[in-house]
Structure formats: structure tokens, C-alpha cells
């Protein structure tokens, strides 16, 4: 009885797999190319330049598999509702798929930027605090720096990779602003606000649309957005667009010289006198990067019990949660140690300062994004005020 059922399912399944593969998904030469000594298993060339291990008998490579499940259509879950698909299927593709209608001006974008973005990305997208720069000037000019390479002369100028000079398509920016920004409260911007911010990004990178300058008055909408051509649109390899994309990718990774890899016949690899005579040993200079947290140690002792471990570690929490924005000018937050700056803030009265810290203000999210209690947050505010007198 079981066997009969099994055969029926198997037949149906084979058909579906045939359909599935007929589309050119698997036309990458599914003939075994060689045998590995390691596993006495046959391997097949893979799209990434490596090998894959097809199931042979009841094994793939060194692993046993239960082949029964290969033959079964396991009907788990349920079909999503139309509304559920709309709610989650919101990705934005280069051809405009998923890009909603809407509009926003450069001017509005700058205002939103100053309120919600500048504290991390700096004035005019110049970067700061470990967050990415969004612009370094004219995109077309900076795109030309991508051939800069410090490989032969360490003192040479390097390439500048920012949105304008490097990114191949603008849909990436629109999509990421909408779903990932602002970092402390993502998915809170309206479509119009995203258009406005994208317009501002184009403005500070001096990118033109259809020959037109994106100046302060410029209003970006879906139609104009789809006309954007990024300066570095053709700056990437292998090709990943169009119906031949996967063939192109497979071909690219067949050649190790394309991606800095090296193939060798193990029997003839160099084992003796492999180097030229004049080799140089380069060392880590000036101790290198060594500010590790916690400091490097392999000692096996009991951890020191600091008083702060018993309760709330103000200094540590300040460093983790507050310092990134309150340590330097240009982040929009009053700088710890800046008497005048804090005097201005304190003019609101302590209850106002606490309230702003608890609920967030301008670019600062509620509690600065910290996972601390209200009372603990007040300790952090007190710490900054105490250090700014």
C-alpha cells in the first residue's frame, strides 16, 4: 500500500523537477567532472568557481541522506493572503518594480536630513562616528577615482566609494532609506519623505537627471526617479542582468584570474625554492590596531569584581550608548564637556532635559536607543552634565 503511494508521488515529483530544470536553471554542465580522493565522491562544477557534491546513492559528499524526502511534495504552511503579500513584498528593484508613487523636494529632504540623519552621517553626508559618508562631492568626478589603487604606491590617493561615485543604481538608496533608515527607528518615513531624502542625496552628489541639475527647488517623483542613471552603472562584473545572467556569472568564476584565485596541479606545486631571493618581511607598524575590547588576554584567573558590576555601570553604558553622538561636534548633540552647549540645554530645566532624553529629541531616539531603565538613563544624563561643568 505504502509502495504504491510512493510511486505515484515519485512520478509527479519527477515531472515537476523536469519542469523546474527545463528553464535553464541547471544547464551548467551537470556531468560529473572529476573524482575527489578525499571523499571518493564525484563533484560537479558550481556557479561560484568551486564544486558541489551531488547526491550519489544515499550520500552527498561524506554525509548520508534520507532520499525518501526528495520524492515528496510536503504540503506545510498556508497560502498568504493578498494583503499579507502586499505588506511584506515591498522590495524596490532597479526597473521600478515595487517603487510606489510619491514625490519630495530637495529642500524638504535637506530639512529631514538635518533633523534625522546628520547626527550620524555628518553635514552634507560627509560621514562621521563610524557611519558611512554619503557624498564627497561631484559624483562624475569621483567615479573617475575608482581606478585609484594604492597597490604600487602606498602614498597614492585611494578610490572614493560613496553613493554618487560607486553605487550602480539609485533604487538601492530609495529602498534602503525606506526600510533601514533612520537607523534608530527604521520604517518610520513616508514615501514622500523617502523621495525627498533621495532627492537630497542626488543633490549633494551633484547627479543630474536627464541632463537636468537636481537643485534646491527640484521635486523628485517616480517618473523622474526611473530616469536616473548612476555614473558607475557599468562599473561592476560579472554581468547579473538579463536572461543570460547566470551563464555569465558561471563563466566569470570559471577563470581564477578574474577574481584573484589560483589553481594548481597538486603534484607540481612548488615545494622548494619558491621565492625570489630578495624577499622583505613587513611588520605591523607602531603596534598596529590593538585597542581591543575587552583587552587581549589569555590568562586563566577569576574575573576582577568591580563595584560597577554589582549595579549599573554608568561609564560603560555612557560609552556604549551616549558617547557615539555626544563626543564630537557636528553630530547635533551637546558634546560632553562643552560647558556652553550644556548650559543652553540646562536652561530648559532638569525635568525637560530628562524628558527629552527619555522620549528622544530631534535625531536622538528614545533613551538614545539604550536598553536601560528610566532611572538608569537619568544616571547617564547626570554623568554627562557632571562632566560638562
Amino acid at each position, binding site marked *: 500500500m505504502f509502495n504504491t503511494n510512493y510511486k505515484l508521488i515519485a512520478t509527479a515529483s519527477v515531472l515537476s523537477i523536469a519542469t523546474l530544470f527545463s528553464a535553464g536553471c541547471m544547464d551548467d554542465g551537470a556531468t560529473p567532472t572529476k573524482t575527489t580522493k578525499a571523499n571518493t565522491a564525484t563533484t560537479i562544477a558550481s556557479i561560484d568557481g568551486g564544486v558541489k557534491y551531488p547526491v550519489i546513492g544515499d550520500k552527498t559528499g561524506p554525509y548520508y541522506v534520507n532520499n525518501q524526502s526528495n520524492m515528496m511534495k510536503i504540503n506545510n504552511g498556508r497560502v498568504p493572503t493578498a494583503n499579507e503579500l502586499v505588506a511584506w513584498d515591498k522590495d524596490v528593484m532597479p526597473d521600478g518594480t515595487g517603487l510606489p508613487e510619491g514625490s519630495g523636494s530637495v529642500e524638504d529632504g535637506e530639512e529631514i536630513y538635518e533633523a534625522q540623519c546628520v547626527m550620524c552621517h555628518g553635514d552634507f553626508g560627509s560621514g562621521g562616528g563610524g557611519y558611512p559618508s554619503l557624498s564627497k562631492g561631484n559624483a562624475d568626478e569621483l567615479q573617475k577615482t575608482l581606478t585609484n589603487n594604492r597597490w604600487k604606491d602606498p602614498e597614492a590617493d585611494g578610490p572614493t566609494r560613496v553613493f554618487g561615485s560607486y553605487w550602480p543604481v539609485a533604487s538601492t538608496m530609495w529602498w534602503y532609506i525606506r526600510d533601514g533608515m533612520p537607523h534608530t527607528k527604521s520604517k518610520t518615513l513616508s514615501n514622500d519623505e523617502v523621495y525627498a531624502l533621495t532627492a537630497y542625496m542626488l543633490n549633494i552628489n551633484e547627479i543630474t537627471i536627464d541632463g537636468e541639475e537636481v537643485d534646491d527647488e527640484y521635486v523628485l517623483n517616480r517618473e523622474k526617479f526611473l530616469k536616473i542613471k548612476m555614473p558607475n552603472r557599468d562599473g561592476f562584473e560579472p554581468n547579473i542582468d538579463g536572461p543570460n545572467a547566470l551563464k555569465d556569472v558561471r563563466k566569470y568564476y570559471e577563470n581564477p584570474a578574474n577574481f584573484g584565485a*589560483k589553481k594548481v596541479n597538486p603534484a607540481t606545486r612548488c615545494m622548494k*625554492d619558491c621565492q625570489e631571493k630578495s624577499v622583505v618581511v613587513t611588520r605591523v607598524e607602531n603596534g598596529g590596531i590593538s585597542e581591543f575590547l575587552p583587552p587581549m588576554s589569555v590568562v586563566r584567573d577569576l574575573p576582577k569584581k568591580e563595584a560597577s558590576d554589582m549595579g549599573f555601570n554608568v561609564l560603560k553604558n555612557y560609552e556604549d550608548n551616549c558617547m557615539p553622538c555626544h563626543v564630537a561636534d557636528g553630530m547635533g548633540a551637546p558634546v560632553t564637556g562643552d560647558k556652553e552647549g550644556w548650559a543652553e540645554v540646562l536652561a530648559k530645566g532638569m525635568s525637560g532635559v530628562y524628558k527629552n532624553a527619555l522620549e528622544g529629541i530631534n535625531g536622538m531616539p528614545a533613551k538614545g536607543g539604550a536598553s536601560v531603565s528610566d532611572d538608569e538613563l537619568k544616571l547617564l544624563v547626570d554623568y554627562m552634565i557632571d562632566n560638562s561643568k
Partner: protein
Amino acid sequence: MDNKKSINDLDISDRRNFFKRTAALGVTALAGTSLIASEDDHAIMHHPEWGQKWGDPVTKNRYGIPSAYEHNNTRRNTKLLASGNYRASIAVTPIHESEGIITPNGLFFSRSHGGTAHIDPKEYRLMIHGLVEKPIVLTLDQLKRYPSVTRTHFIECPANGGQEWRGPQFNSLQFAKGFMASAEWTGVYIKTILEDLGLKPEAQWMLAEGSDNSEMGRSVPIDKILDDAMIVWGQNGEALRPEQGYPVRLLLPGWEGNLCVKWLKRLDFAAEPWYAKEETSKYTALKPSGKAIQHFYANEVNSTVVSPSPEKPWTDLEDGDIVEIEGLAWSGMGTITGIDLSFDGGNNYVQAKIKGLLLPKSWTRWSYMHTYKKGEVLLLTSRAMDDAGYIQPTIDEEVSIMGVESVYHRNGVETWEVTPTGEVNHVQVRTPGGIKDV
């Protein structure tokens, strides 16, 4: 009693060999100084505190934690590899303390683009849609109803070693090579689920999207989905840790860690790729031509000496000590087939020995026995090969093709310098004029 019994259990020839070996060792051991102690060891001569009073009841630490003495065996971070507040950052694995080919879950390197999300498993949903005959939504329990597979694979950030294209930066194994870790993963092959959903012929790409703050997404070619791509929920015999995407992440064996999308919420099949932020602005490798490699999938064959290392020097060794040089080798393109070890920075090599399990797209342990000469200076360089036919290039060979601006996918050979006092430094061996235009 137990010791005696075990010797009696040996067969005659084993026993004879055992005694012969012991006798031979005894002679050489006496000739050395290490076994002749002048003073009795306090650790032996007194009753330690832990042997004279009750230990903890079994009711303590219902989820076990490491010995308090192991507190320095921990992930570490550095401000130079961090956004201001450690939310789009990395904490790296202490591979200098790693044993075998499995990383404990608490030490698995942690990288996120919007902080570690904490997902309520009851509200977890996975949606699979796009160019499939039947889109579906799964709860966590429904997902786990699929037949599971368990595989041991490393996950490596393609920026592992990426700070060192222009010269060594970290005098530390943890930071030079710790943007990776390895685990035994349990989940379901995506191809198993697709048998029911039915992939449409024009589907070439799959978007994997996370539900975290950054909504991390990447495009994956269908080849990988129909090969060994997995949706995993198990890590070393328990649920994924939050830092690894609890409750569910994508696992693309051997491929960039960034592609193994965590907190996975959605798989969308389409005819064209998406150009997500982490496959354009980052995770692309700029070459001297000005063109950048995009969709750079597999982490190439690689290796490192683990012991000695800057963290685990040989300063305690005496002249004539026999010491095991130990290392790791791995390849995202296949199975390790051999590791060569050089004592002179890559001029001459000997073959090292593979130890333990040899698995595809997995860490592989290797070692080589060495008799230490007091005061010797060594340049320990390891070089691995895989069954896809690749070997690690020299630094000059790799830079000749990739330049020094590509950040990602650096797999040139790595060298540790052993100084006369047994300290170990991270160095690079270069040939002047060794960068050739290719």
C-alpha cells in the same frame, strides 16, 4: 585498579609495544631537566579547597556556563571596525582558543547591520513567494516539520583579513582571522520546500530578506538554492543564538557570511536580481581596472597557523621541546585536500598532517610536529589546497590581480614570525617589485 584493568585489556603485542615505548621515553625524559623538580609542588602536596567541601548542587546553572576562569575566552571588538554605537558592527571569534572544528555558540562571531534583533518565535513567519506556483507562509513549528539535515560548515565574513591588503595591521590571530566561526547547523534544504511550491521556469534569483532593523537582504542565484542552500534553526544541537538570527537564518554553505541572512522573514523568487545595499555599496571588490566584482560568492581556500600565534607564543618552550604546530584550513569552494607548512616564509614547504574529520566547506584541523631550538627564528606560513583545484596564492600573486582596495575575499598566505624569545608576530612576506600587471 582501573588503570591496571585497562592495561590487562590490551592484547599481548600492544602491551609489549606499550612497555617498549615507555622504557624508551623514560631514558630520554631523565636526560632532560623538566622531570627533575627540586621542590614539591604545592598543587599536589595540599588538599585543594574544591576537594574538601560541597560543590554546587545540580540545580545551579540550569543552562551551563563556562568556568569563571575562562572569562578571557570571549568575542572581542575594536572601535576601528565599528559604527559609533556597535549596532552596525562586528565582534570576532577567539580562534586562538578554539578547539577542533566547532565554535561554541557563545563565541560565534557576531555581525549585524542594525543590531541583534530579538524575535518572538510565536510571531515568527517565513513567507516564500514570487515566481513559484504556490506562495506560502510558515510558522516556526511548520518550518521545523520539514525533513531536517544537519551539516558542519564554517561561516566567514568575506572581510576576514580585509584590513591587511596593504600590510599587516593586527598583531593578533583573533582579529587577523577571527571574522569566522564554525558550527553544526540543522535545518531544511530550500529545494525540499520548492518541490511542493514549484519553481517557475523564469526564476533565476532569490531574495533573502531579514526582519531586523536594517531589513538586510541579498540576491542569491538559483544554482545555489537547488544545490545546498538551507534554512536553519539549529546550531550545535540547540536553537540559533539571537546573534546568529534566532529563530531562523539562511545558510549558503561556503559563501559570504553576509549572504547567510539572519532573522530570515522572506524568500522572493524573480527573473532579475535586486541590487540590495549590501551587494552594491559593500561586499563588492574593487580591482585596479576600476571595475568591482559584484556577487562574489564563495570564500576561497584559506588557512592559518593557530598555535603558535601572537596570543599563544612559545615563550615557555625549552631547547629540544617537541611541540605541535597546529592550524586550521577551510574552503568555501570544496573540501581541503592538503596543507603545506613553511618555516621560512614560503620559500620551502613540507606537507602538514590533516587531523580529525575532513568535511566539505568546513574547518579542517591540521598539524605538524616540531622540535624547538632555543633562540630560533621562524617564519611560519601555511598554504592550503581544495578539491576544486585551488591553492592559496602568495600575497604578491593575489595583489597583482586584485590590487589593495578590494577589502573582501583576501586569501593570500599568512605568516607568523617566531622571534628568538619565542614571541610571535604577524608579518607579511613580500617580494620588491612582486606586483605584476596582469
